[in-house]
C-alpha cells in the first residue's frame, strides 16, 4: 500500500514537471526573441537556477545534518572553474563547432558532471579532517577553506586570463568555453531547468531515503544514532561530499551565465548575493530542513537583490533612504531579522511541498487555524 503511494507520487511529479517544462519551451520558442523576455526574464531564471541548487545543497549539511559550513561558495567556485576550463579545452581541441553542434550538448553535460565530481573530491580533503570537529570549529575551518580556495585559484596560472596554457596567474578568466550570450541563454534555458530539476530531485530522494534518515538521526542525537548501528563519521563525510557535488553543479551553471569568471565573485568579501554567508541566510530564511524552503528563499533573495540593483523605485526614493541600498547586506540582514521574528523556524520550517499531499496539507492547516481561532474566542469569552 505504502509503496504504491510513493510510486504514484513520483508519477504525478514527473507528469506535472514534463507538462510545465513543455509549456515553458513553447513559450520560449514563441517569445524568445522579444526584448524583455530575452534580456531580463531568461537571465533571471538562469540565476535563480544556480541559486536554488546552491541553497538546497547547503541545506543538506546545515539543515539536515546540523553542521554549520561557511565555505559553500568555495565549492561553487571549484565547480565554475572546472566547467569553464573543461569546456574551453574541448573548444580548443575542436570537439564541437559552435553552440548549435549536438556535440556541444555532450560537452555541456560532461562539464556539469565534472564540476560536481571535482567539488565532491576536494570536499573530501576538507571534510575528512574537518568533520571530526563540531559546531563553531567546523564553521571556522570551512570559512578558512572558502578563503584558501579563492587564493589557490588566483595563483593557478591556467585559471587566469586566456585560460589553460595561455593564462597567467592572478587575473580573471576571460575565456570560458560556456559563457552564454543572451541568445544562447534562451536557446539553452531547457538545460538550466533540466539540471536544476534533476539536482533537486536527487537531493530530495536522498533526504527521503534511509541515508537521509540516518543523517537526521545524527543531527538529533549522535549517541543514539551510533547505538542504532550508524557509522556517524562516514555519513557526515559522505553527506558533505554529496552537498559539495551539487554546489559544484551550481558553479557549472554559473559558468554558463558569465562570460568572465573572477574569484572575487565567490569571495567572502563579496557584497553581492554569491557569498557563503548569504547562502546560509537563504537556508535559514527558507527553513533549515526544508528543501522547498531553500528553493523559495533562493528566489526571494534573488528578487530582493534584483530590485535593489535595478528597481526603478529605488532611484525615486529620497537620497537619505535610498542610501541604505548601497549596502545590500544591510537589507538582507533586516529581511532575515523580520522573518526570524515572525517565523523562528524559517518560512517553511521543515515542511516539504508535495503535489500529492497538497490538498490534505491545506485542509489540515485550515483546520488548525480554525481551532486556534475558536480557542482564542473561547478565551476571550471567558475573560
Amino acid at each position, binding site marked *: 500500500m505504502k509503496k504504491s503511494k510513493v510510486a504514484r507520487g513520483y508519477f504525478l511529479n514527473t507528469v506535472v514537471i514534463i507538462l510545465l517544462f513543455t509549456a515553458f519551451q513553447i513559450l520560449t520558442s514563441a517569445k524568445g526573441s522579444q526584448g524583455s523576455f530575452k534580456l531580463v526574464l531568461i537571465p533571471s531564471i538562469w540565476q535563480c537556477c544556480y541559486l536554488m541548487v546552491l541553497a538546497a545543497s547547503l541545506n543538506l549539511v546545515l539543515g539536515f545534518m546540523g553542521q554549520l559550513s561557511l565555505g559553500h561558495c568555495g565549492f561553487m567556485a571549484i565547480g565554475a572553474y572546472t566547467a569553464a576550463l573543461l569546456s574551453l579545452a574541448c573548444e580548443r581541441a575542436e570537439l564541437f563547432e559552435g553552440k548549435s553542434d549536438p556535440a556541444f550538448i555532450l560537452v555541456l553535460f560532461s562539464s556539469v558532471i565534472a564540476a560536481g565530481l571535482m567539488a565532491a573530491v576536494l570536499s573530501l580533503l576538507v571534510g575528512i579532517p574537518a568533520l571530526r570537529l563540531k559546531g563553531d570549529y567546523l564553521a571556522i575551518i570551512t570559512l578558512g577553506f572558502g578563503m584558501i580556495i579563492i587564493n589557490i585559484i588566483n595563483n593557478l596560472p591556467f585559471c587566469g586570463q586566456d585560460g589553460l596554457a595561455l593564462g597567467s596567474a592572478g587575473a580573471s578568466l576571460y575565456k570560458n568555453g560556456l559563457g552564454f550570450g543572451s541568445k544562447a541563454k534562451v536557446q539553452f534555458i531547457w538545460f538550466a531547468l533540466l539540471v536544476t530539476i534533476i539536482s533537486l530531485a536527487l537531493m530530495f530522494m536522498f533526504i527521503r531515503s*534511509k541515508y537521509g*534518515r*540516518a543523517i*537526521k*538521526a545524527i*543531527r*538529533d*542525537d549522535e*549517541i*543514539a*544514532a*551510533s*547505538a*542504532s*548501528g*550508524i*557509522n556517524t563519521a562516514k555519513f557526515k563525510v559522505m553527506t558533505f561530499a554529496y552537498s559539495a557535488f551539487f554546489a559544484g553543479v551550481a558553479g557549472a551553471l554559473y559558468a554558463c551565465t558569465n562570460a568572465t569568471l573572477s574569484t572575487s565573485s565567490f569571495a567572502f568579501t563579496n557584497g553581492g548575493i554569491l557569498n557563503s554567508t548569504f547562502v546560509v541566510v537563504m537556508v535559514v530564511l527558507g527553513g533549515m*530542513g526544508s528543501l522547498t524552503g531553500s528553493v523559495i528563499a533562493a528566489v526571494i533573495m534573488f528578487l530582493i537583490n534584483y530590485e535593489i540593483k535595478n528597481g526603478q523605485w529605488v532611484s525615486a526614493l529620497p537620497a537619505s533612504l535610498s542610501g541604505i541600498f548601497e549596502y545590500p547586506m544591510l537589507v538582507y540582514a533586516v529581511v532575515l531579522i523580520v522573518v526570524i521574528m515572525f517565523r523562528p523556524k524559517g518560512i517553511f520550517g*521543515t515542511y516539504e511541498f508535495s503535489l500529492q499531499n497538497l490538498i490534505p496539507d491545506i485542509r489540515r492547516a485550515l483546520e488548525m487555524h480554525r481551532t486556534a481561532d475558536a480557542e482564542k474566542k473561547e478565551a476571550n469569552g471567558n475573560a
Partner: protein
Amino acid sequence: MLEVKDLNLYYGAIHALKGISLTVKDGELVSLIGSNGAGKTSTLHAISGLLPISSGSLTLDGRDLRKVHPNKIINLGLAHVPEGRHVFARMTVEENLLMGAYIIRDSKKIMKNLEKVYSYFPRLRERYKQLAGTLSGGEQQMLATGRALMTDPSILLMDEPSMGLSPLLVKEIFSIIQTLHDSGITILLVEQNAKMALAVSDRAYVLETGKISMSGPASELANDDRVRKAYLGA
C-alpha cells in the same frame, strides 16, 4: 545467554566496577538494583561497549563482546535502551522506529518488526507522524524501547525506564516490560525503583559501590530484611 565475569572498570583513578559477575539466561528478566552511583549504568555501558573495561570477560551466546566495535554490537542481537531516552527529537515517531531497524536490509522484515512494535505500543501507531520531541516522557520511553525492539534483539538492556515519569506512567512502563518478558524477550533491567523492578523480575542483583552485594530470585530479595530496609523503604 549473557555472561559477565569479573568485570573491572576505572574512571581515571576511580575503581568504579570491582569484579562484577552476572548472568542472564535466555528468556529471563533480570534486574540490577542499587542506589545512585552504585555502578548500574556503568555496567550496562560496559556490556554494550560504550565504556572500555580494564579486565573481565563479556560473552553473549559464547561470543566475546570485547572484540566487537560498539556500532556492530547491535548486529549480535544486543539492543540498548539508553538512560534519559535519547529519541531523535526532530524526526517523526515512525522515522525514529525505522532508524532502529537501520542495520536490517530486508524491507519486509522491517515492516514486520514495525507492525510488532506498534502492537506492543498502540499509542505510537496513533502518533506515527508526530515529531518525537513533542511526545510526553512516557511516550518517549515507549519510543526508545520500540526503537530498540526494531532489530528483533535476543537481549534488551534497559537503563532506568521509569526515570522522570509520573507514578501512573511508571506502572504503565512496567506493565509493558512484563508484556515484553512474557513474549519471550530476554531483558536486563537497571532500576532505581527497586519495588517495581523486583515485582516483575525473575532474578535480581543488588549493586553497592561497584560490587554485587546480594543476588537471588526476585521474590526472595523482596522479602529480605536488608533489601527492604535499604531499597524498599520498609
